[in-house]
């Protein structure tokens, strides 16, 4: 193996070099690689929720919900945007997490953080099991499996009304104060900072994962699934890992929703929730993590404003929006912004 050593390669390279290419001159600083440097825009982005706490004190509940759904959307981005698995049943893990936290609380265990942990574990185990079904077969079979799992779980929760409360939902949740000190108040202040904290911490973790060699290999699966085995990658194992992680985060998001609203409705498992999530993610732009957050925010704010109108119109325009996005604005909001920025940059250098 010594013949392959880097120094030997370098020696060969400099021997073969023509004067115009100088390997040493290309410093590592100019190389574009996934890194962990926080851009100014990102810091501004994360100050927005903090600012909104002070500027929109009447909307704390809505903003908390946006953050929770944003977390949920990010978990789907890991699976869909980075690994490229089309899943129509991601709500299954969200719902599992919600019911786990809900049932724990209803039966006497109201400590929030341990509830989150329990939800994560349950959802992760479910995700792990389902992932083995998902790695078999092609896109259509995968789609059907994820859809089927979601529907199965919904039916199960519906029929097991004696546990889940069925159509009426699970109520009677009592939450202990966060860290033993912060009560979950009606205005939603504790819920707000709780949601923000969990979202931010998990975001930092996911950001690291996505920019790591593991994240790079996920993109490799998405960009060149055929080549991955040919460079020695065990694709199946990778997909199992990311699907499990995505399920766990979705479970945490579900638990957050349950704990902050102290209620779990059957809709957390339904197909509409999976479909809406997909729409939010695509609206914001897949494969960017921030796209999930932006999409969730835009969608939910719009829904809040327009909900007064006839739901039929809402459904029609969402459908139309989807068709238009697919035909004309593939990268979603962030993709569109990136294109505009690139065009401006080109004009500047021209």
């Amino acid at each position, binding site marked *: *193996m010594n*013949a*392959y050593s*880097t120094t030997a*390669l*370098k020696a*060969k*390279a*400099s021997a*073969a*070099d*023509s004067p115009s*290419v100088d*390997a040493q001159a*290309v410093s*590592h600083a*100019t*190389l*574009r*690689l*996934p*890194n*962990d440097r926080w851009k100014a825009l990102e810091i501004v982005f994360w100050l927005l929720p903090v600012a909104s706490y002070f500027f929109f004190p009447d909307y704390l509940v809505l903003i908390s919900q946006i953050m929770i759904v944003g977390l949920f959307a990010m978990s789907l981005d890991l699976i869909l945007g980075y690994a490229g698995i089309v899943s129509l049943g991601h709500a299954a893990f969200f719902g599992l997490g919600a019911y786990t936290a809900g049932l724990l609380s209803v039966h006497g265990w109201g400590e929030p953080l341990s509830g989150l942990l329990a939800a994560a574990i349950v959802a992760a185990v479910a995700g792990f099991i389902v992932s083995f079904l998902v790695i078999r077969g092609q896109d259509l079979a995968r789609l059907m499996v994820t859809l089927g799992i979601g529907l199965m779980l919904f039916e199960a929760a519906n029929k097991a009304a004696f546990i889940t409360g069925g159509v009426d939902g699970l109520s009677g949740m009592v939450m202990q104060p966060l860290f033993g000190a912060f009560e979950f108040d009606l205005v939603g202040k504790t819920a707000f900072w709780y949601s923000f904290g969990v979202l931010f911490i998990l975001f930092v973790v996911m950001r*690291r*994962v996505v*920019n*790591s*060699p*593991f*994240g*790079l*290999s996920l*993109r*490799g699966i*998405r*960009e*060149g699934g*055929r*080549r*991955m*085995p*040919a*460079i*020695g*990658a*065990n*694709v199946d194992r*990778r997909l199992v890992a990311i699907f499990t992680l995505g399920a766990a985060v979705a479970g945490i998001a579900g638990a957050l929703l349950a704990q902050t609203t102290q209620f779990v409705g059957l809709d957390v498992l339904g197909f509409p929730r999976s479909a809406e999530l997909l729409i939010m993610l695509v609206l914001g732009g897949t494969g960017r993590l921030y796209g999930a957050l932006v999409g969730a925010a835009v969608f939910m704010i719009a829904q809040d404003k327009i909900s007064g109108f006839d739901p039929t119109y809402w459904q029609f325009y969402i459908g139309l929006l989807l068709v238009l996005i697919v035909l004309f604005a593939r990268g979603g909001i962030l993709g569109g912004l990136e294109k505009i920025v690139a065009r401006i940059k080109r004009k500047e250098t021209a």
Partner: protein
Amino acid sequence: MTMTLRTEGLCKQWGGFKANTDISLSFQPGARHALIGPNGAGKTTFINLLTGGFPPSSGKVFLGGEDITRLAQHERVKRGMTRTFQINTLFAGMTVLESVMLAICERRGLQKVWWKTVANHADVVEEAMALLATLKLTNEANSITRSMAYGKQRLVEIALALATRPGILLLDEPAAGIPSLESKELFEVIAGLPRDVTVLFIEHDMGLVFRFADRITVLVGGKVLTEGTPEEIAADPRVKEVYLGEAEHA
């Protein structure tokens, strides 16, 4: 790392069509071995059988004495056998540097690492840049693969294989689609690989074959017609007939 590669009675059949029939070949460590034959002779099928793209209908493949016939593709790469594809099979949306680093990380077992960013692996970056330099791709390090010219993409195709540091390298028409000047340069790089690496390549350009191969196997209609040194093959009347006959019917 010297490795032996051997097949025993390898056959592949789809319905009534016999793509490979009873191929028993043995490749010397360090050989520069060319696989030639008319279109449709089953050369790419053979490569697919060697690398595990699909299972054979019958027969066995031995790598370093181990029976790898049932082994998954990625396992064979880990054992030192890598291939390139006839049609560029790349990571379209990733940059050249990212693609090569991905391959290197896989080889080094770094794919489990989720707590450290790619940019922080300075040694991997160095290795990747050195490899790019040997293929004169340094200036393309930041280029997105899909936006590159075909010829450059072909170099990336080779780079990905080299990044796995194979003991046995299988090249499926490496020069396909690139002009002859660049293909000669490409073959210089291949010829410059460490002497203990076995290279098996499919090629149609006879000039390149006779220049770089020290052993040639001729495949016709899924079967081995003959094998020998370049001189022997050039002198073999059956080989001439296969190619001349092809030219007449063309």
